């Protein structure tokens, strides 16, 4: 820190220096203005909620703060002194710590080894000593985690605690949590917020990035809403705002509530999908699905809840016949099935093929001309489909693999949900979508249900499941530990099931 910077920092009388102050930050990627004139101030001892839709510029902003991107314009101050972090290591040296959504821990290493990787210490790993320090810190912050456990064997919640501990032990005073609650059970969210409150009480600054408005209202002292790369709203005490007001700030217009007439589920007699004692191996050869009994009936939407990696992926693949069962049985009837895979890029995208070419890769009859495909006819059919589905796909001549995750998802959703089927299997259908398209996708699933299809839908958003599902199957460690009727369901008891307890 240069001396005149210190002088300037001290010159601000009356106000405590902000832990982090971002002034007029702008960043452009080609045609896209990802951030424009963004201001953000985080005071010590406060929680700052940062909300915005996918593509609103949240991650660009975070990456500039964390030294991954260099801003085109604007300035940043830490403790009042100007800084320009050129790498994550620079940012960490400034006391900025980031807990990524995908958690950067190495699964094969222990918690202590992962933390050792981040600490600049000597050539010998003093793991016993380090374990003692980890235990001490974990007690101080209420972040219970076993230092000698292999990360692979930890739950998502435990991994997150380990990651936060790592960030704190490397000396972070500003902790950025990137969508920390999207993978947690409600109980774990409460525990996490307990930790966040404690960090705040110890004078640290916390930036909480989320799209769950209730969370911002519950815990943030300040809120900043980004839309189209710009700050739309910056206010203290977000508790004073309603969900509708915050959504309007995020989306730019009012979003009407889910508007699909929901008929009662017809009598459940001939299921479209029956799993009886279905057991299947995961990709690493471990038993990932353990004796699952589940039936999906025509005209109902069954939600699947569970913390990430509890067997949801294998359940969907078994239901679709993509993954063999080692014991038990699967009966998906004779009707057509459509599916949205958990990992669309790996499972459904053929690199190099266009959107239009992907539209004929769904097993339906293809319009022919001579020996070839009648592409104009496919184009016309696709246009009709796009119009009816209403998810506004990217132009059909674009190469699918070059599109963003949300746009790929919209193409696949259009192709799959645009056709009639007896069984619909949708894994995380709204992943990467903005509020309006998420809403439309939920409507499409409910339309399938209304037409008499059986719908199996996996989501990590419990609120979404409660809003659209008739029943929710809760998974934990490969088992379906309970099937709850959504009418009168209670988040907390579903959460207990997700964590392996009894409702």
């Amino acid at each position, binding site marked *: 820190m240069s001396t005149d910077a210190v002088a300037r920092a001290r010159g601000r009388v009356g106000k405590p220096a902000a832990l982090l102050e971002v002034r007029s930050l702008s960043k452009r990627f080609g045609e896209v203005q990802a951030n424009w004139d963004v201001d953000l101030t985080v005071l010590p001892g406060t929680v700052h909620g940062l909300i915005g839709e996918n593509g609103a510029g949240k991650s660009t902003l975070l990456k500039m703060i964390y030294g991954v991107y260099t801003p085109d314009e604007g300035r940043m101050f830490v403790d009042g002194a100007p800084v320009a972090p050129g790498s994550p290591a620079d940012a960490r040296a400034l006391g900025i710590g980031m807990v990524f959504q995908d958690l950067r821990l190495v699964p094969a290493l222990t918690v202590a080894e992962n933390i050792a990787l981040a600490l600049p210490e000597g050539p010998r790993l003093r793991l016993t000593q380090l374990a003692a320090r980890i235990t001490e810190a974990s007690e101080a912050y209420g972040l219970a985690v076993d230092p000698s456990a292999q990360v692979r064997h930890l739950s998502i919640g435990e991994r997150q605690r380990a990651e936060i501990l790592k960030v704190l032990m490397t000396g972070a005073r500003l902790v950025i949590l990137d969508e920390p609650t999207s993978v947690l059970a409600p109980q774990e969210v409460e525990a996490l917020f307990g930790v966040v409150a404690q960090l705040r009480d110890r004078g640290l600054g916390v930036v909480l990035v989320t799209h769950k408005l209730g969370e911002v209202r519950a815990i943030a002292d300040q809120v900043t809403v980004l839309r189209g790369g710009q700050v739309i709203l910056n206010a203290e005490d977000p508790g004073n705002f309603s969900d509708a007001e915050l959504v309007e700030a995020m989306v730019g217009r009012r979003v009407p509530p889910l508007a699909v007439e929901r008929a009662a589920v017809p009598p459940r007699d001939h299921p479209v999908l029956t799993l009886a004692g279905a057991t299947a191996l995961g990709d690493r*050869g471990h038993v990932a699905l353990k004796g699952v009994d589940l039936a999906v009936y025509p005209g109902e939407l069954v939600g699947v809840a569970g913390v990430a990696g509890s067997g949801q992926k294998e359940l969907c693949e078994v239901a679709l016949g993509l993954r063999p069962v080692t014991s038990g049985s699967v009966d998906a009837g004779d009707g057509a099935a459509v599916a949205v895979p958990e990992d669309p890029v790996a499972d459904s995208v053929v690199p190099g093929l266009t959107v239009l070419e992907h539209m004929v890769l769904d097993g339906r009859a293809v319009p022919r001309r001579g020996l070839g495909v009648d592409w104009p006819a496919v184009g016309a059919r696709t246009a009709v489909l796009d119009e009816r589905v209403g998810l506004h796909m990217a132009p059909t001549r674009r190469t699918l693999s070059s599109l963003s995750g949300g746009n790929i998802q919209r193409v696949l959703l259009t192709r799959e949900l645009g056709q009639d089927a007896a069984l619909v299997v949708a894994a995380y259908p709204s992943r990467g979508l903005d509020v309006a398209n998420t809403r439309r996708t939920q409507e499409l699933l409910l339309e399938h249900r209304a037409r008499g299809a059986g719908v199996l839908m996996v989501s990590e958003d419990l609120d979404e499941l409660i809003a659209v599902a008739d029943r929710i199957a809760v998974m934990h460690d490969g088992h379906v530990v309970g099937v709850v009727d959504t009418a009168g369901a209670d988040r907390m008891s579903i959460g207990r099931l997700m964590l392996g307890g009894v409702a």
Partner: protein
Amino acid sequence: MIIDILAGAVRGGTSIMYAGLGETISERGGVINLGTEGAMLLGALGGYAVTAETGNPWLGVLGGALAGALLSLVHAVLVVSRRANQFASGLTLYFLALGVTSLFGVSYVSRQINAFTPVPVPGLSEIPGLGPILFDHDPLVYVAYVAAPVIWWVLFRTRVGLLVRTAGERSEALEVNGYSVRAVRYCATVAGGALAGIGGAHISIAYANSWFENMIAGRGFIAVALVIFAMWNPVRIMAGAYLFGAALSLASVLQTSGIAVNQFALNAVPFVLTLVVLAILGRRTMLAAPDELLKVFDNSRTT
């Protein structure tokens, strides 16, 4: 005879052990090197040539290590910097090494060298049974006793080892913490090649005490398979290497004791053993595989 076979197992397994330890380091760092056989060949010739020219087998070991390291450096350039297919690069380098050593080895065929000789450990070599099996060998055998646990310690108890393992498990975690994946993989691959080179040198300057074309005869490939059986653990490599050493020594011991068995059938024993172990373990070993290697196996990608 049992003692002869076991002593032969230790002596014959040593070269496989060096190569297996080297390949363990390389694969722990995320690079599969099928060129291990080639690195051993170069090590065998390099070791033999340096020993022949200098008269000092220890300098021969150094020469062998350098020769093996050099070949693996080429592999590292191809797969780490150029992101070439690891299997293609490794196999090609093996054939290159086979050709190069045949060509330049001609002048060393039937040349005499000052080879390593057995150095009985005072006292310990007198123990009945155990003495001749473990403590009446050339110095490289004793170095190997120490090498396996030391490499285990380095991999699991030092920062360098942590970096290597992270490179093999989740390389972006290195970048996030400010380390270079490239540098770590280069070091791991080259160190692995150097150890394979020492293994090769052991064959030419301590085991066979001669040089002839293709003298490694598949030991390098056995070492690569052994790394999988041993689940990337240096201490298990030690045990596995001696098992294969026993399979190798069976032939010579049976021969010297006058039992007539088809030579070609006996030569096949280590490879049949490899297939049997692979069949028994099947997919199970892959549970222990470094994650970045799974990417190589599953998609033939090298990133």
